[in-house]
């Protein structure tokens, strides 16, 4: 019998704010190709998402003002934030139940990240269906480990505890889930992300940053490195593509560094523009402070663009053919940019081997591994086990709430001897 999934998402192309949309798009389509029936629940948006696949049905659960990267401090939402989250989750519950009633029982509920945690927990409880949770990022990542908000941490922990299985997008994220949220590692599977390759363009002397301009993504380090590069290679152009709350300070920073004539801030780009800029750039930099995976690195590499990625990213733990740096080490980022600009053989080797390695990162693979996770859930056994282990979790939870170092140090480490 065909497996039937209620997947509760947030963003879906053409509406897109981050890697979550890319992931849900790739995953749902490949699951559908593998003969899994997927109902994808998402908020109503201006751009209507469509499916041309008979196994994939998009269901809009209603309207909402919240955004997955919002914080309750945001003025526009003021105190209404929690209320808005709660309201949307209620809409999701009602919608999923209605669909289950008309189209038959779901085998699994599969949810992504914090926003719909509440709904997925209620649905698991009330419908008696196992819950799979994919963690794309945690509050620690989004805050750059500086001021994580307890409200998000609490809702994330509740969802993780409730979930029958958790999919983490990297070992890095699995570790955070275990160490900071006190979750049993045995119920966490790591499934790395994938990419739909982007065509290579005619390369220009452009060094690219692309991502949300938030503290998590480390664009400030990109600008600091740019300053150093320009002392040696004055003709290079630096492009900062994307929007976010840090945009004004980044523009100020570029002015202060005296490089505003060499840095272009593009603002929001369309899908087509994104592909174009990946294709024509010579170097892509992902200096994230904390990056559970980092699909943009794979996108750049697929477009034949040599990539320098932060060691604190999931992609670095699984991908060989990119350069790896500590995000705070702007000297090292700068030397690598200069080396890439000067040494053609380094660029061609990274581009060629990178494109070859990219072929291993397909959504088909991700869907296959996700189905393995569904199949691995022995519903009855899991229920018993989880009950017995509740005590251990509680204890772990206590341990995790203590503020101990996760050794994700933000300061300079001693250099490795070579």
């Amino acid at each position, binding site marked *: 019998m065909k497996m039937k999934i209620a997947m509760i998402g947030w963003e879906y192309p053409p509406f897109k704010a981050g890697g979550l949309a890319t992931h849900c798009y790739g995953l749902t389509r490949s699951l559908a190709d593998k003969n899994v029936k997927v109902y994808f629940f998402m908020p109503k948006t201006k751009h209507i998402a469509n499916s041309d696949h008979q196994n994939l049905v998009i269901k809009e659960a209603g309207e909402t003002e919240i955004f997955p990267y919002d914080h309750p401090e945001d003025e526009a939402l003021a105190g209404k934030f929690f209320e808005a989250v709660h309201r949307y989750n209620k809409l999701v519950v009602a919608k999923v139940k209605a669909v289950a009633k008309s189209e038959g029982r779901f085998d699994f509920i599969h949810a992504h990240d914090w926003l719909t945690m509440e709904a997925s927990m209620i649905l698991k409880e009330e419908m008696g269906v196992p819950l799979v949770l994919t963690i794309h990022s945690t509050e620690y990542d989004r805050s750059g480990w500086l001021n994580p908000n307890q409200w998000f941490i609490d809702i994330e922990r509740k969802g993780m505890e409730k979930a029958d299985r958790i999919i983490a997008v990297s070992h890095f994220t699995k570790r955070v889930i275990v160490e900071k949220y006190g979750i049993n590692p045995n119920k966490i599977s790591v499934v790395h992300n994938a990419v739909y390759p982007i065509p290579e363009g005619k390369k220009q002397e452009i060094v690219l940053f692309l991502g949300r301009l938030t503290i998590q993504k480390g664009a400030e380090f990109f600008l600091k490195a740019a300053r150093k590069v320009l002392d*040696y290679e004055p003709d290079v152009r630096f492009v900062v593509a994307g929007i976010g709350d840090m945009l004004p300070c980044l523009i100020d920073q570029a002015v202060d560094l005296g490089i505003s004539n060499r840095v272009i801030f593009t603002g929001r780009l369309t899908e087509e523009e994104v592909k174009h800029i990946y294709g024509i750039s010579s170097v892509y930099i992902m200096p994230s402070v904390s990056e559970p995976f980092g699909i943009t690195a794979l996108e750049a590499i697929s477009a034949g663009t040599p990539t320098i990625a932060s060691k604190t990213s999931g992609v670095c733990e699984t991908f*060989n*053919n990119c*350069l*790896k740096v500590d995000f705070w080490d702007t*000297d*090292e980022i*700068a*030397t*690598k940019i*200069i*080396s890439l600009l*000067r*040494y*053609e*053989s*380094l660029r*061609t*080797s*990274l581009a*060629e*081997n*990178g494109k*070859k*390695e990219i072929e*291993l990162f397909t959504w088909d693979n991700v869907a296959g591994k996700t189905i393995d996770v569904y199949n691995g859930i022995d519903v009855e056994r899991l229920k018993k086990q989880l009950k017995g282990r509740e005590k251990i979790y509680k204890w772990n939870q206590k341990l995790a709430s203590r503020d101990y170092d996760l050794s994700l140090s933000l300061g300079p480490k001693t*250099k490795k*001897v*070579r």
Partner: protein
Amino acid sequence: MTSICLYFEVHQPMRLNHFSVFNIGANHDRNSDYFDQKLNQQIFEKVAKKCYLPTNKVLLDLINRYDGKFRVSFSLTGTFIEYCERYMPSVLDSFKELFATGAVDLIEETYYHSLSSMYDDLDEFEKQIKMHREKIKRIFNYKPKIFRNTETIYDNRIARKINELGYKGIITEGADKILGRRSPNYLYKPFDTDIKVLLRNYKLSDDIGFRFSTHNWSEFPLTADKYAKWISHCEGDLVNLFIDYETFGEHQWIETGIFEFLKHLPGEVLKHNHLDFVTVSEAVERYQPVGEIDVPWAISWADEDRNVSTWLGNDMQIACFNELKNIGRRLKEKGNEMLLKTWRCLQTSDHLYYCSTKGLADGNVHAYFSPYDNPYEGFMNYMNILQDLKQRVML
């Protein structure tokens, strides 16, 4: 009678300092600071304690116990001997002691374990062979008769040159692609040169070098009597077992039982009446070539490919190699001895080996010996140094 020719390669590269693009052209007043002396000393002393000293002692005991019937050959690179002189003369003394038994032969090679045999002309290759010859002469008062090129790189041109320089034999890999269905257990000759070629029996050599401690190998554990039995069943004049010396105690740790294997090997071999041990010189004196080999494109003992792609297989390696050659051309016109020495140290093949991207795109990282996190780091560091040297040469 079948003879066993056991030969060990002994080499340590000069590892480089971290050298960023910002360093290029920054310190031209100072003496070269390309080499990480501290790290090199550390590694050398570690390997000396784990491998060189204990293995030399085992070999000396065996030679004495079997009254010279157990015989081996060594190839010591110039950089290795320099390390001994600088950091641990006792290591060199133990090699001298072994050589003094008369059961040990020494092999010639390029002083810097370089790829100079791949240059457009062979002047530098010849120069480095002569430097090695002088070093061996000064330390051991001996002139080697057999030559083995870096990583057994070999082609027709190299064979002709080595013949011209007066050597009696040359060692290379018993690669299937040059032998076809013929056996490596005989001497051969190059098709247009009169020199004897010793071919490494890669299967039996790798049984010790690579597979010895591999638990899922069907022959695990490998014992000396089993191994001696395999050899006793070999057809041919000569079984050439050529192995990295660091196999003993370094690649294969003492816990694997590699030293026990070595200690029992001569006794087990000599139980078979038709087996004995010879040095490389004795092998070419005793036996005659049975056929010709024709090698127009260079082969080596590295990887499955058995060619030079491990050092010259990607764009980065070729860029560095060309840079090295160009710098050399300019340097020789200029004749600066200090820079010439630096340039030669940078020719050691290991630097190019660290830039190899073989297997990297398949998601499997080579479990190879490199001080770098990945080949791209290796390339940037090496290339930056070459750029700095180039600027110095132009000054």
